[in-house]
């Protein structure tokens, strides 16, 4: 068997993103894009799901560990090539979205 270890998924719980009624149709582009923006938005802007979760947990004095769940879940939506391209654009300063 070639690389049995390599064929195992990375450690941790990776789930499929659940149904989001904000994006009910087959075209999930907006779902991916909105959540990608959400992750890269810093504090002071409209809070994205992940960051919102972190803030709320910190306010209640709890660990932000469960928030990792959001992070992985929405990363599973976007094609890797899109995320790579957008991250490259952010680095180059040519990203069109508001972050």
């Amino acid at each position, binding site marked *: 068997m070639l690389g049995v270890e390599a064929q195992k998924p990375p450690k941790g719980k990776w789930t499929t993103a659940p149904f989001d009624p904000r994006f009910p149709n087959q075209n999930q582009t907006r779902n991916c894009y909105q959540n990608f923006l959400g992750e890269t938005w810093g504090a002071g802007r409209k809070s994205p799901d992940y960051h919102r979760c972190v803030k709320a947990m910190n306010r209640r004095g709890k660990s932000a560990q469960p928030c990792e769940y959001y992070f992985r879940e929405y990363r599973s939506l976007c094609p890797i090539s899109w995320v790579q391209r957008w991250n490259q654009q952010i680095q180059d300063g040519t990203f069109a*979205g*508001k972050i």
Partner: protein
Amino acid sequence: MNHQTHAFHMVNPSPWPLTGALSALLITSGLTMWFHFNSMTLMLLGLLACIMTMYQWWRDIVREGTYQGHHTPTVQKGLRYGMVLFIISEVFFFAGFFWAFYHSSLAPTPELGGYWPPAGINPLNPTEVPLLNTAILLASGVSITWAHHSLMEGHRKHVIQSLLTTIILGIYFTLLQASEYFEAPFTISDGIYGSTFFVATGFHGLHVIIGSTFLTVCLIRQLLFHFTSKHHFGFEAAAWYWHFVDVVWLFLYVSIYWWGS
């Protein structure tokens, strides 16, 4: 005895439909020569043929109606149907461009930044020249209505004054819009925003020029005493067309200039 016993106009054979079709062929193939082979000759020939066809065909219609009396009420009814159907077809023509605009602007893609106006686009301020243009066209709608009423009441001087006012307002609109085109910070090649903006407003501008020309022809005919207070369909057709142009602008203004900014 050789006279017709029906109210319709059996038009004499005419070469203009053929020359019109030929001009269409020359224009379209001329566009190909211009786009791909860097030559404008064929297209210019086609445009010339088109203009000559229009001039002679409509001149003949004026001769048949005004000078020879062929335009009975029945014939006029047919002409009315024709103009209405033509304007309806133009409505559908513009509907396509509005569809394109709304398709792109209601769900802006990630490439645009996910918002409208897209990233990097500074739209024109709708409260500046575009608002003035709206006022100009609305005023021209009033002046052309004044012209129509003057015509029906037999006030020759007022017809000439109000028709001239309408035409001048139309030219003023065209000049302002041309200046906007030169001064705009974005061009037709600036993504989908540029495409939808300039194609929709551009075709509208072309229709303003066509409408102004139609009105000018009416002014000339009025000066030559062609119209009576009861029979002036050419003028009515021009007025319908002018109101159509005005309405299209209102949709453009609200959709692209105002909502789209």
